[in-house]
């Protein structure tokens, strides 16, 4: 843990961060450029906010002690209700702090836009969030993986997201933030990892009884391993059945398929696929 990781952990947890440190999940344990930037942004806000919070934390006990009814030494000025100097200070300090924070926010928001590609020639993946499971389609590779996202650690990735029935939200916390996956719509999320590794991914939006199980593993592999892995997957997989979603829901899905059906994603993401009910 570096010092700036300790700061937010301790500041916010009050308690010791030991169990948290062992956890190594979430954007504070960043493993990709976006999460790393999120963490840095998070910490910088804490520092800025200290400008307004610390004086109060110091002043409050002093005032409570000095002006207490029984034995307090402070002067009693029962009609003291205004002081131009103090008022200028208490308006202008927050204005300045919020000014800086706003500047900071603007730049961070634009440069970390999840829609913004993180590098040239990203790996294209289409993610379909369904009840209890995620399907990842790799159009250029012609395969589909279930509940496992295979990334090339030397390449950035661009996810196209949609959901089968309800609103969901897809995130791999250690790599980048989340974006909603919505039925009948397509959204986008760009990801990259600093190094090979396995990172947890999940749906964050309540979607029904299977919600706690809507998780997937993101495996970022070194380039050569990634190619080999894709090959192996392709060799071991059968064709994608048309009723793949039902099968997976029934528990007799495979871990991967050959995507003969190139526009499965487009069909599910089309508003018309949801038809009129009743």
């Amino acid at each position, binding site marked *: 843990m570096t010092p700036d990781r300790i700061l937010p952990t301790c500041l*916010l*947890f*009050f*308690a010791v961060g030991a*169990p*948290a440190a062992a*956890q190594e999940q*979430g*954007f504070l344990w960043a493993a990709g450029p976006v999460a790393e930037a999120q963490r840095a*942004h*998070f910490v910088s806000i*804490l520092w800025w*906010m200290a400008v*307004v*919070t610390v004086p*109060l*934390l110091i002043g*409050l006990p002093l*005032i*409570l002690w000095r*002006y*207490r*009814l*029984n034995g307090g030494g402070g002067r*009693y*000025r*029962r009609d*003291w*209700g*205004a002081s131009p100097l*103090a008022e200028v200070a208490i308006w202008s*300090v*927050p204005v300045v702090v919020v000014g800086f924070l*706003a500047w900071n*926010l603007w730049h961070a*928001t634009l440069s*970390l*836009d999840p*829609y913004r590609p993180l590098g040239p020639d990203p790996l294209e993946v289409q993610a379909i969030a369904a009840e209890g499971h995620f399907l990842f389609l790799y159009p250029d590779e012609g395969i589909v993986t279930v509940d496992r996202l295979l990334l090339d650690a030397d390449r950035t990735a661009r996810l196209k997201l949609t959901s089968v*029935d*309800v*609103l969901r*939200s897809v995130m791999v*916390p250690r790599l980048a*933030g*989340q*974006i*909603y996956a*919505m*039925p009948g*719509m397509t959204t*986008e999320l760009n990801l990259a990892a600093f190094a090979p590794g396995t990172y947890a991914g*999940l749906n*964050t939006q*309540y979607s029904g009884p299977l*919600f*706690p199980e809507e998780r997937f593993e993101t495996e970022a592999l070194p380039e050569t391993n990634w190619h080999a892995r894709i090959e192996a997957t392709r060799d071991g997989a059968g064709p994608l059945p048309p009723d793949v979603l039902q099968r997976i829901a029934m528990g007799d899905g495979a871990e991967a398929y050959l995507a003969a059906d190139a526009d499965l994603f487009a069909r599910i993401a089309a508003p018309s696929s949801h*038809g*009129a*009910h009743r």
Partner: protein
Amino acid sequence: MIGLFLGTLRWDDVTFVEFWRTPDLNNAIAAAAAGLLVLGVVATLILLTVRGWWRPLWRDWLTSLDHKKIGIMYVALALVMFARAVAEANVMRAHQATAALDAGLVAPDHFAELFSTHGTIMIFLVAMPLLTGIMNFVMPLQIGARDVSFPLLNAISLMLTAAAAGLVMVSLVLGHFSTGGWSGYPPYTGADISPGEGPDYWIWALTLSSIGSTLTGMNFAVTLYKRRVQGMHLFRMPLFCWTVLCTSILMIFAMAPLTLATLMLWLDRHAGFHFFTVGSGGDMMNFANLFWLFGHPEVYILILPAFGVWSEVFSTFSGKRLFGYLSLVYATMAIAVLSFTVWLHHFFTMGQSANVNAAFGIATMLIGVPTGVKVYDWLLTMMFGRVRLRVPMLFANYFLVTFLLGGVTGVLLANPTVDYGVHNSLFLVAHFHNMLIPGTLFAMLAAIHLWFPKAFGFRLHEGWGRAVFWLMAPGFLLAFMPLYAMGMMGGMRRTAYFSDPLFRPWLWAAEAGAVLILAGFAALVVQIVVSVRRRDALAVPAGDPWDGRSLEWLGPAPAFEFNFAGEPKVEDVDAFTALKAQGEAYRRQETYEDIEMPRNSAVPVVIGALAGLAAFAMVWQAWATAALAFAGVWAVVIGRSFVRDTERTIPAAEVEAAHRAWLADVAAATPVHRRDELTPENRGLAEEPL
């Protein structure tokens, strides 16, 4: 035919029958909750009958249009609902803490029902009635008015809120509540995925309570514009009244999108509309938009009255004028205006352009400026004061500190960059509880302690009040600090079980905190009972137990039914302090006049009952019953408009007698120094400060 009147309601929907058919732990818990409710109702009915309290209940309370009694009834309703919602929070936490070892206590759908009812109840049936009740009781007194502008409407608002509470309570026994959370997003709550009665319970409970709140907003705003006593300029109103004004304006404009969004959802569900259904041109994103167009101003509806209460508490218990009155007024108004410009921060992650997110993020952070100003104004209010850490002041100082943390995490969440990482997580849950518990809930507890003597004539027991504080204050930290941590470790809200064993210690800590808060609530109940028992020693008939500063402390405790015998003179923000300083607070009046007060009316009760029945019938698609009940509501409204004789006169002699009796109490009381404020010597007369 019967279908028209009973709709889809069947025996199998009764929770007890469900348990009988499938007797597992999950259904046992549901049946136990339903059983507790039925027992509670039966016990109340028996008590009322045995004690012969039906008549006084009807005559003095249910049909009363007195703003003070309506306020008290709001608070009582909120406390009953709080008992349920806080118990639910404990069940959720206990379930999560045990869920990894085995299946936990409840089934996943039942867990979803619990967070949905907990959230819905806490917001609409605990926080809203609490603050509406306090505003009702205090605001007219503070501006020197005899009542609100529309007393009948006021009672109707209360009864609609009570009907909403009744509807949510009935869902314990008949059928199930929604599982879609307090925000009820489609498509999850749409007919395809949630075909049952659950979302309809949610829709109609919200409809009833939001109509009640809209009417309250109008009523209070008009009262503040029109009913201020002579001399009470806008800029002489106590700060609490300013927050009531801003809250009322927010209520008028913010509740409408909610009422509309839920009704549109109902049309989607039952009438084949497609406002939010995917395909056929509907768009679920519009629901999020409408919901938060209400939802964000709503959080300021919840917090502004709290800011008002804190302002009164800091100044009263520092024995000193509020610091930066004008700053606080402008800060309050700024917050009210800005609160309509930030709703998008609840869905930064919906895929809109980064520019839009940045604009709304900055707008959100701007609210931090007036909020920060307030915090420092409160701090400076204590400076040069004589600070007494009575129970409301304990809560107030605890609030100052915890509010900093809530403010910091709020600013963090206002940054889309950070929000992408913690949206939907327990970090967010921790943030909003951080605002709602030390902010709203504790402010309302402080308000109850502060104004209780004015309502009932005696102070609340201080020792038990401290017990409430010392249970709830650490309870909150224990219950919610772990959630910040879990949220940053990737723990999401509304998760029925966390498979990761590393969450376990945090979950147990959170459970322990929830138990402490529950214990704090129990202490509050004990405190009320103990105080009632010792009411003679705690009585403050002269009316001014805390050396109060604004007009509500002029007059006896409990307050005159007609609030003031004459028109109080107002020459300062701290109008009552000025009167005391000039020696005019306890003057006999030369002349007394007849006073007109609104006559009691059964109309609000009938309207509330019929509206509740209509809503219940809509839930179960019993169209005929619904139509009849709805027609009944309007028949009563029309019928009432023909009643001309709605006022009752209190003769001058009666006013004079009451006023003299109070002055005699004042004469009999010895003025107490603030040091002795908590002793039985405090009969409600404050010593002249040096």
